[in-house]
């Protein structure tokens, strides 16, 4: 229905109002007009019947004694009824007996219409009505009276009704418009305000706006109040959220600063400890060397053994300190990225290892062409740690097999070092990279437990990943990535 196809509520209400009142009025008009016309017509018929009866009674003797003059005189009395245009009295055989016309100049056409068995009847002739009534005297018809009446009044009446109805319609239209303006003030304006506020909120995420409170105290006012209350709550919640976030951020920043400070102090401390330990350790190492040199012949075998162990321990401690210093450096040193040929670096480290143990049977495979952009010194530490590991854990197999290679993956190049050494239990794969965590006994494979942790820290700092695969007795594979992101 197009009728309600308007945007504003007040427009819809106005149209509904007009439609309802208009329909009611038109229906009432039609009903009243119909009723009035019906009763008017009935009244007309009744009064005409009465007049016909009177005329008939008064014309009985005229008819019976053939006195047309008397009948005419009787009919003349009808001049008092302005609605009767003309009248005719006929004999029982239908012949005209007497005639009356109100307006002498106009010819009134009255034709007998009553059937012989009919005593009365009426017929509509345009704006006129013809009524016939049999004159009965002592149970016998002695003639018939026909009256012709004007029904133009009916039309007048209809016109009057129409006029009054239109007046009422106009007035009710006026009232409808008045009602619309009040509807606008009490219903539409608050709703529009509410809608606009909601729009501003959804568009700008601005919860500080408020809908205007309507003057009167109704459901709409309640709605607006609730809406504003809701906004208050949202705003309060937002503020609280913001405050707590700010407080949290501040706290995090403080903690981070504290932690960074503590970390630096710790690193400085461990660095200086490691560094300062070197001097006395060197001293112990030198003294044990001198002892061995000087008194090798004089000493009993037990003392000689003790001195030998002293030398070993000091050497081990030295390597431990080296590793700790490496670890500290891996964390604190600044990255200086430059292109590095990993294959070359791997080859040179493995040559160094072979040189130290020339008697080992080895099969070394290095895939050439692996280049990365990374910190030269740190990456060298990583490769040394991994390769040394591989070298160490293959010390007990007949033929040492170490392979370096790389595969291209969607996420980048993955480098790997594979060996056929002792391997490890895969469920402890994570522990490999934690400092001082070892999967093998010191007596079986000596080590500090810091190397792989250092390697992981360096790879982390380059933004890469390192992980290990393997199983007991079947060797191990170490994978790592060294992504290069230009911005860093």
């Amino acid at each position, binding site marked *: 229905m197009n009728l309600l196809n308007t945007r504003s509520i007040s427009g819809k209400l106005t149209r509904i109002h007009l439609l309802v009142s208009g329909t009611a009025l038109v229906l009432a008009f039609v009903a009243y007009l119909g009723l009035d016309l019906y009763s008017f017509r009935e009244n007309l018929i009744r009064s005409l019947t009465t007049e016909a009866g009177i005329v008939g009674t*008064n014309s*009985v*003797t*005229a008819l*019976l*004694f*053939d*006195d047309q003059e*008397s009948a005419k005189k009787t009919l003349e009395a009808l001049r008092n009824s302005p609605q009767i245009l003309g009248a005719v009295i006929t004999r029982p*055989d239908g*012949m005209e007996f007497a005639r009356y016309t109100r307006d002498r100049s106009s010819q009134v056409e009255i034709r007998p219409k009553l059937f012989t068995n009919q005593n009365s009847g009426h017929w509509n002739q345009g704006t006129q009505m013809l009524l016939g009534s049999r004159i009965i*005297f*002592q149970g016998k018809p002695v003639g018939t009276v026909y009256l012709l009446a004007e029904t133009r009044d009916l039309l007048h009446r209809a016109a009057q009704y129409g006029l009054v109805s239109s007046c009422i319609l106009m007035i009710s239209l006026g009232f409808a418009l008045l009602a619309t303006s009040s509807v606008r003030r009490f219903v539409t304006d608050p709703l529009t305000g509410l809608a606009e506020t909601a729009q501003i909120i959804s568009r700008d995420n601005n919860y500080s706006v408020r809908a205007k409170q309507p003057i009167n105290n109704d459901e709409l006012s309640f709605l607006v109040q609730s809406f504003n209350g809701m906004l208050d709550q949202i705003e309060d919640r937002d503020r609280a959220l913001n405050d707590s976030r700010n407080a949290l951020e501040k706290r995090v920043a403080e903690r981070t600063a504290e932690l960074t400070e503590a970390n630096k102090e710790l690193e400085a401390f461990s660095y200086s400890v490691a560094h300062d330990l070197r001097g006395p350790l060197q001293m112990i190492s030198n003294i044990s060397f001198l002892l061995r040199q000087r008194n090798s012949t004089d000493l009993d075998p037990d003392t000689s053994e003790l001195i030998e162990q002293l030398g070993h321990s000091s050497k081990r401690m030295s390597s431990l300190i080296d590793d700790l210093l490496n670890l500290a450096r891996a964390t604190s040193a600044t990255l200086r990225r430059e292109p590095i040929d990993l294959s070359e670096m791997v080859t040179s480290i493995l040559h160094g290892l072979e040189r130290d143990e020339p008697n080992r049977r080895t099969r070394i495979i290095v895939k050439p062409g692996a280049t990365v952009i990374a910190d030269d010194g740190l990456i060298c530490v990583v490769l040394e740690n991994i390769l040394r590991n591989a070298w160490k854990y293959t010390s007990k197999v007949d033929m040492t097999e170490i392979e370096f290679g790389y595969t291209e993956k969607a996420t980048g190049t993955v480098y790997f070092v594979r060996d056929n050494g002792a391997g490890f239990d895969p469920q402890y794969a994570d522990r490999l990279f934690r400092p001082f965590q070892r999967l093998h006994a010191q007596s079986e494979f000596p080590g500090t437990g810091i190397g792989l942790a250092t390697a992981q820290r360096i790879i982390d700092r380059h933004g890469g990943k390192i992980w290990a695969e393997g199983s007991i007795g079947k060797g191990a594979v170490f994978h790592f990535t060294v992504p290069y992101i230009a911005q860093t």
Partner: protein
Amino acid sequence: MKPRNLRIATNAIRVALTVLCLICTVNLVAQARPSQYEVKAAYLFNFGKFAQWPTRMQQSRPPTFDICILGPDLMGQALDRLTAKEQIDGRPVRVLRVKKDEDARSCAVAFVNGSDGNEINSELTALSGANVLTVGDQSEFLKRGGMIQFILQSNHVRFAVNLDAVNREHIVLSSELLKVAYSVSGTPVQEPRP
């Protein structure tokens, strides 16, 4: 059928219809003009409907409403035809042709006719005091003491009333009847209220 033949046939039908209509009209006119005595017979019958007879007559009144004809009968069968199976005042109407004038005293209405004035005089005398509504045709009828006299005026049958004669016999004629009378002579009598 050819169009020419059709036209002839149509014309023939038209002529036949016209002739038929003419015949009908003539018949109607002939029917609408009843004879003078037929009209008078009807009037005679109708007078009875507008007259009231004295109440003392009510007890001894005959069981029939008699319309009598005294003297030569000019009405013929018209009156018998009109009054057949009719009733006035709740009594069946009877038409009597009376040989002896005295026999007519029990009648309600009497048509008094005579070959001359003397006969009419004697007939009226015979009816006097019998409360009979006397109707006559003769020109001097009212002067002779008759009550209602037919008058022929421009081919219309009218009647004149002698109220004195009517009152003398204690008969009351309806004002409706007097309204359509050609003339009313004499003075009406205000009857004392019972």
